């Protein structure tokens, strides 16, 4: 059976800007696929093409077995979409929006009403169902948005930055919801995010996108282990920076770091830290701060792009 999401050399340009540059994707049934990248990397443009909202400049994509350009109406029947800006009319109540969504998807009135009730219960909004959405919190809006994308039991669910702007509790509640959807219903989920933790927690496989290109792809574990060595970061005074760099790079390759900080990938792994500290002490270099991190997706991103995803620090 064909994969629910397949893209071949998918590209989109806006004038001179190449927003998405020849990406290839293959997402299998029941998979949660994470599309990770910083703001402006091309994640939303890719999702808009896969959800038939935007025509590609070149390349092709099939979603739920149908070409997104030639068979767009067939794709729309089979996908659920929760877009980045929680596209909901603040003047309507949660219940009204769900009923409208049922109408848009051609659900008969009676089964539509039943479905609305089930979905409100599923996302924990039964009591708020008759309140106007304008009075909902950010987390409630996102949960309603998720419910709206599920009315027609889609084969493929696209979540475009579903937790951006949410507090940690709401974020975790939404993650839990996505997990249970995927496990209970077997829905294939395509998730874009700029949060490393989100990709790490939810996705079985991720693709890292930067400047419109996919720079890494694989399971979070395989990507992290491919980066290899753990990162050792030390803070020294500005005067000792060059001397410390010479010492440290004897123990591993330098990695991107913020000002007055040096980071290396420790070739010998965690035990190697003793040797580094001893060498720095022998050269009379004063260390202000030490950090040792096992590889993270941020390291994977830094390794692929030379930049950090979160806050530009390393």
């Amino acid at each position, binding site marked *: 059976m064909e994969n629910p999401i397949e893209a071949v050399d998918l590209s989109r340009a*806006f004038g001179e800007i190449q927003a998405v540059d020849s990406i290839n994707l293959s997402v299998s049934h029941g998979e949660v696929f994470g599309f990770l990248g910083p703001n402006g990397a091309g994640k939303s443009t890719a999702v808009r093409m896969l*959800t038939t909202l935007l025509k590609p400049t070149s390349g092709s994509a099939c979603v739920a077995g149908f070409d997104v350009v030639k068979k767009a109406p067939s794709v*729309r029947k089979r996908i659920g979409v929760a877009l*980045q800006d929680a596209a909901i009319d603040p003047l309507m109540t949660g219940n009204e929006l769900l009923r409208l969504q049922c109408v848009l998807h*051609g659900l008969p009135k009676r089964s539509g009403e039943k479905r609305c009730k089930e979905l409100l219960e599923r996302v924990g909004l039964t009591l708020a169902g008759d309140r106007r959405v304008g009075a909902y919190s950010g987390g409630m809006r996102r949960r309603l948005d998720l419910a709206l994308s599920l009315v027609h039991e889609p084969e493929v669910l696209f979540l475009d930055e579903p937790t951006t702007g949410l507090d940690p509790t709401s974020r975790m509640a939404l993650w839990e919801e996505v997990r249970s959807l995927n496990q209970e219903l077997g829905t294939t989920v395509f998730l874009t995010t700029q949060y490393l933790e989100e990709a790490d927690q939810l996705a079985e496989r991720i693709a890292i996108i930067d400047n419109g290109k996919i720079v890494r792809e694989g399971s979070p574990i395989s990507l992290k282990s491919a980066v290899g060595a753990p990162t050792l970061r030390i803070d020294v005074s500005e005067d000792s920076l060059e001397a410390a760099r010479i010492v440290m790079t004897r123990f591993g390759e330098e990695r991107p770091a913020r000002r007055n900080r040096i980071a290396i990938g420790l070739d010998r792994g965690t035990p190697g830290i003793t040797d580094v500290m001893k060498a720095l002490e022998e050269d009379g270099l004063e260390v202000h701060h030490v950090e040792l991190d096992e590889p993270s997706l941020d390291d994977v991103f830094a390794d692929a792009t030379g930049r950090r995803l979160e806050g530009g620090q390393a």
Partner: protein
Amino acid sequence: MLRQPQSWAPGLFFPLLLAAVYSSQFSKAVDIVGFPFQDVSFLDFVLPACVIQGVLFGSTNSASDLAADIENSFMDRLLVSPVSRASILLARLASAFMYGVVQAGILITIFLIFGANIAGGFPSIISIVLIAALLAVSIGSFGIAIALRTGSQEVVQSTFPLIFVAIFVSSAFFPVQLMEGWYGSIAQKNPLTWIIDPTRRMAIVGFSWKDLGQSLGIISAIASLGIGISIWQLRRRLVSAQ
């Protein structure tokens, strides 16, 4: 409508206020030599224009709502659903029509309560409501094209003064026969004059298929242009939207 009274209330209030002011200030205007109608009150004279004015004030509502839908991405929700693209546009035009029917109905009722007379009776009343609502659709379609092009409520609402000026530089509140100079010349060439004059004849003289046909013909021409531009802008948005 109940949730957003600010969107339709001005369309009722301002024409009624203007009608009250004009009827009290210009009541003697009907006695001026050359006034095209005999034995009518100024209230009777301004009734069709006030109805059309009220409905046109509300005609930007649908476009403004569409721009809001684009701004808050609700439009995207419609576009990723299996409904046809045409129905998204048609729904907005149908909403403009319904707004127009309700507003025109309420305005005519208020005028009749305050003593206005519609000589053509029921057929004329229906014609005035139909003309007003279809004019709201045709002018509203330009607003929809602007909403699709810009996706901005502010830009759509900024077109409102143009409608206001277009009504005033027409035969809406004074007969063009009595206007002079450039003002009269523009008013004579204003398509709103070609719509208001036959509508007014149906209110004051009596129902006529010819007058109804003239009004609807001009409205159809305006609507064809406006809807054509809207379809073009919708297609353009679907291809190039970021």
